[in-house]
């Protein structure tokens, strides 16, 4: 892999994370537990889509093969997607959606704090802008984790169940592979492995306030960075990519 290839791959990871989670949040539109929450979820979705567009446009430029944000979003198949497994998991109920969001918000906040100091001005700029959005996302999801955890018996059970179900997708977030190492070495990227203790502290604090139990680290799955995904991603892509794939000559 050349340095250019690695930068491209690295930017795809960032863009794909935002896009896939944004797409999942779009599924909630009109179906949230209360109207106010519908507006909150779409605000977060809009932020994520905005991030995705900036990263994918940048990735396309780095790659230099004339692929723009839409070419990258609509004409890649499962094996070429680089989003975290966590983010492609189905919405489930509101507890599962919030647990997924909370784990990612807590991670993305730290990751972007680091990226805002990237040696690459453009990447640093996108990260700094997004960090303001993520600060709010994290506040929103942490509030919900606490409300659901320390709410009723039913909500406690649901959110604890969601956390247990998603726990094994989390270790992957902190993996460093060859691309991460190289990007870290030239000041482009961040050391996500080093974020783990800070993430743990923050998450543990919220879980404790929510009277929730941190699951034991018993299982974990990984592979998204080599294009190994859960089966859910294929369906998400089939739905998302349908129109441009069915009418490849059309402009929209």
């Amino acid at each position, binding site marked *: 892999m050349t340095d250019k290839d690695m930068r491209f791959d690295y930017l795809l990871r960032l863009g794909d994370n935002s896009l896939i989670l944004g797409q999942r949040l779009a599924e909630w539109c009109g179906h949230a537990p*209360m*109207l*106010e929450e519908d*507006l*909150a979820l779409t*605000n977060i979705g809009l932020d994520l889509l905005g991030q995705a567009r900036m990263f994918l446009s940048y990735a396309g430029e780095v790659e230099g093969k004339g692929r723009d944000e839409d070419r990258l979003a609509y004409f890649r198949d499962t094996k070429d997607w680089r989003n975290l497994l966590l983010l492609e998991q189905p919405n489930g109920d509101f507890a599962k959606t919030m647990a997924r969001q909370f784990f990612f918000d807590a991670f993305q906040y730290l990751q972007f704090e680091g990226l805002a100091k990237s040696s690459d001005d453009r990447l640093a700029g996108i990260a700094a802008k997004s960090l303001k959005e993520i600060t*709010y996302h994290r*506040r*929103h999801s942490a*509030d919900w984790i606490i*409300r659901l955890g320390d709410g*009723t*018996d039913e909500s406690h059970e649901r959110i604890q169940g969601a956390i247990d179900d998603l726990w094994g997708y989390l270790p992957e977030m902190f993996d460093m592979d060859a691309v991460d190492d190289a990007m870290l070495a030239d000041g482009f990227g961040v050391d996500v492995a080093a974020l783990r203790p800070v993430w743990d502290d923050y998450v543990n604090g919220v879980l404790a306030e929510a009277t929730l139990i941190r699951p034991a680290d018993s299982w974990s799955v990984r592979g998204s960075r080599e294009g190994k995904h859960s089966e859910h991603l294929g369906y998400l892509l089939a739905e998302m990519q349908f129109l441009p794939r069915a009418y490849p000559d059309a402009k929209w």
Partner: protein
Amino acid sequence: MNIETKSELPLYEVFIRSKNGLDHKHVGSLHASDAEMALTNARDVYTRRGEGVSIWVVKSTDIVASSPEDRGSFYEPSDDKLYRHPTFFELPDEVGHL
């Protein structure tokens, strides 16, 4: 602890300062379980186009309002106190701006 919660989330009134130097202005209401949620909901509902730099939320039941029947006794007595308005006083032009 299980609380009988048939009732809906309480109503909050929302006031927004659109920019520094202006008063907070009432923009509407929303439902939230507590003040923190009311504040974040207000941000999501009422500032989608950058309408605000500061938000107040107040539980609707905490607002004490005058009633229309008070209109006479509350506001009309000030109608005849014209001396409270600067235009009441006539000054010779030579005095200039005062």
